[in-house]
């Protein structure tokens, strides 16, 4: 599947009776690289989870490449081309690494697994380990590789670099950039390491208390240090 | 440091307020018992059976609800108490009810110790199966040792003397009922104290994560064994009372069925909650008695439907559901303000 656009309009959602997101709208053209930033607890993860169909939605619509996803369950959205890597390392603990990857393949033939091994040789070495027998960082790599295998047209990455060694972070960011560059997928990424995120992204979305507070390019953001200070609150 | 003073934590609240709550809880038990006594004076045998069962279910709650060990073998322990008391009376002439209770409690504690050493070796389902194996072995042993236990015919010839030499066990089961309720209150009070002691807190922690408990330097197994011995003493008391009140101890008192029933009652009422254990027992035995006297032939279906319905409407057990309702009411009231 080639990259697709993602449109979100008037999205309001939360957990149980508590609403976290209020009237969020944005639109991303196919093949873009987007960074989603914001202080902790503003609802970044909730936004991704809502797009993936895992929270309670109160209103709004979600469309992927023009197709409406709003009423579909999580699996339906995935089959329409949405990829989602949650912040919690949601590996399947009792499956081996290889089986974890198999689940990510969707309907592709088994041989497709080789893509993941090419990208992360480490996973090939560990392919018979159970998910629960991986190190923290290996789990993180596995979740990302698993979602990429499904060749989503839009990929949502929630803090993919957490717990990774700096050198692996570099490699992973390079891999994402390459995927986006070939026009294979649209990538949205939440990341705490702002520098890394800005280096990667073409567009930036900043959330504040469940709403979109700022949009623009990385260059624009660099030129507005007071926005950075106000919305991201980073001292360094 | 005013901040510290202000947030005087609630759980460090005064001992007296805790005792007040205990008194209230005990008052509730006494009130329910009194209502039962005056409303159903002709049915005290049933009520006694319920109270005795409550002791066994409470003992199960200790290991399952507080210690996190699912077991289908509790009857091995309560049954040991029953046989200990029964054998003491039938073969050794120890017929004073209080002495029989003591023997039963000791027998139960011992059985708890032995079972715990075995059961704690397994994990998850395997642990459940160990408990089943224990109760089946106990059942088989009781069947084999028929010279002592009467085997499948039951151990008869138990003739307890009057309580304190004054209160004869009567046909109306009044003495049994008073004895049972008194025992329940004592046990309940002690268990409440124990469950909020450091030991109780440690047990709750082990239930959630034994690895973490080890990482703060506490020993998991000895604590659970201790819990089991405690539970065994309570179960043994229940078993002994059972022997005293029916004067016969049958193989059913060390059966898988009894263990399973106790577990069902506990889950029905809600685990990890002393009131849950008691309410579950009350509701289950009472319901069973009711439907089985209405239709002795097909009542099992009704009990089945009750259990399914409870899971459907009160998945956390009856006390869990009560808690939810209470919380919702309180939230509504606060929202109203």
């Amino acid at each position, binding site marked *: 599947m080639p990259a697709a656009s993602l449109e979100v309009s008037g999205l309001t959602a939360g957990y149980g009776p508590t609403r976290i997101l209020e009237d969020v709208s944005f639109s991303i053209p196919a093949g873009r690289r987007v960074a989603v930033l914001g202080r902790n607890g503003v609802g970044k993860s909730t936004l991704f989870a809502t797009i993936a169909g895992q929270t309670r939605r109160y209103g709004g619509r979600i469309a992927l490449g023009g197709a409406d996803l709003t009423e579909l369950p999580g699996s339906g959205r995935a089959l329409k081309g949405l990829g989602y890597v949650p912040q919690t390392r949601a590996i399947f603990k009792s499956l081996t690494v290889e089986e974890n990857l198999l689940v990510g393949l969707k309907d592709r033939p088994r041989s497709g697994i080789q893509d993941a091994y090419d990208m992360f040789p480490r996973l090939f070495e560990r392919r018979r380990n159970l998910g629960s027998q991986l190190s923290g960082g290996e789990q993180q790599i596995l979740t990302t590789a698993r979602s990429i295998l499904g060749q989503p047209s839009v990929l949502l990455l929630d803090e993919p670099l957490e*717990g990774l060694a700096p050198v692996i972070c570099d490699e992973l960011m390079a891999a994402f950039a390459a995927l986006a560059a070939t026009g294979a997928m649209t990538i949205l990424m939440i990341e*705490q390491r702002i520098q890394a995120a800005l280096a990667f992204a073409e567009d930036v979305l900043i959330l504040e208390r469940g709403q979109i507070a700022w949009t623009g390019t990385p260059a624009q953001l660099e030129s507005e240090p007071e926005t950075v200070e106000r919305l991201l609150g980073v001292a360094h | 440091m005013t901040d*510290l003073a202000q947030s005087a934590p609630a759980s460090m609240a005064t001992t007296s307020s805790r005792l007040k709550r205990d008194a209230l809880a005990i008052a509730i038990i006494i009130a329910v018992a009194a209502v039962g006594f005056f409303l159903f004076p002709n049915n005290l045998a049933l009520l006694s059976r319920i109270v005795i069962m409550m002791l066994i279910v409470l003992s199960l709650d200790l290991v399952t609800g507080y210690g996190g060990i699912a077991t289908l073998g509790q009857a091995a322990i309560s049954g040991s108490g029953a046989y200990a008391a029964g054998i003491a009376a039938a073969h050794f002439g120890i017929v004073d009810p209080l002495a029989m209770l003591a023997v039963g409690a000791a027998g139960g504690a011992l059985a708890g110790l032995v079972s715990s050493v075995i059961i704690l070796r397994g994990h998850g389902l395997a642990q459940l199966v160990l408990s089943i194996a224990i109760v089946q072995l106990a059942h088989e042993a009781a069947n084999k040792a028929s010279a002592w236990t009467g085997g499948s015919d039951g151990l008869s010839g138990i003739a307890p003397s009057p309580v304190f030499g004054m209160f004869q066990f009567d046909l109306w089961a009044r003495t049994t009922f008073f004895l049972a309720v008194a025992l329940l209150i004592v046990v309940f009070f002690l268990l409440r*104290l124990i469950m909020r002691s450091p030991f109780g*807190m440690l047990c709750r922690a082990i239930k959630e994560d034994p690895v*973490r408990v080890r*990482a*703060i330097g506490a020993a998991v197994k000895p604590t659970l064994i201790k819990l089991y011995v405690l539970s065994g003493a309570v179960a043994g008391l229940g078993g002994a009372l059972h022997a005293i009140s029916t004067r016969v101890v049958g193989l059913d008192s060390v059966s898988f069925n009894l263990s399973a029933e106790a577990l069902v009652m506990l889950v029905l009422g809600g685990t990890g909650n002393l009131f849950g254990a008691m309410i579950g027992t009350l509701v289950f035995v009472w319901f069973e008695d009711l439907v089985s006297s209405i239709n002795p032939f097909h009542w099992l279906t009704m009990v089945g439907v009750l259990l399914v319905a409870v899971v459907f409407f009160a998945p956390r057990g009856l006390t869990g559901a009560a808690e939810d309702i209470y919380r919702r009411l309180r939230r509504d009231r606060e929202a109203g303000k």
Partner: protein
Amino acid sequence: MNPVFAVEHLEKHFGGLRVTQDVSLAMGQGDRIALIGPNGAGKTTFVNLVTGQIKPDGGRVLLGGVDVTRLSATQRVRKGLVRTFQVTRLFSEMTPEEHVALALVQREGKSGRLFGTYADMPVVVSETRDILGTLGLLKVSQEKVREIAYGQRRLLEIALAMALRPKVLLLDEPAAGVPHSDTVLIENALAQLPPELAVLMIEHDMDFVFRFSQRVVVLAAGAIIFDGTPREVAADARVREAYLGSYADARSVA
């Protein structure tokens, strides 16, 4: 000076994989060491071996000169060897106050008491408050742990460790999953630890590592490949290649 803590020739393999290869390390009183290394290098395994969660295939662990290799995890804790977990392991139905009180009661050897409560033990009450206060956890001390924020749980992990008055403290990625803006809280907590305590910390956040440690040990593929000051580490070519990547460049530029 006699080391408070040492491991000698530690070995461990899972099947064919040698995750710990002849690792030796010594720590003196007051040491602040960072243990870094690529993902899957065997850092968490090292902590598990040292604290007794898993058994080594060879080598010794010494605490104050005494061999503790054969002791259980529980016994090692009682001797002052304490860890925190990479993924928090707390009792979700209990409050922070109960957590700390439990650790204190345990340390005082009173966790087997059947009667009374910790609230009746003045020492426990006051020290619980002190520790929670130090870590800024007093305002949530009565909430169930499953309802408190992630960063606060990480702090509580540290609170538990502090309550045990360790001689050696092993921290496994204390800041992982904590937003950058919140690592300050953890750093403050670490700064308040008794100075004589020996601390070893695993962490991938290099800025944090460099601020915290006097000495950095690098583990790769189960073996120690480097041991030196932060400055030396940043300059070492092997460490750059195996671990730091562009971070080293960024830092040298800065």
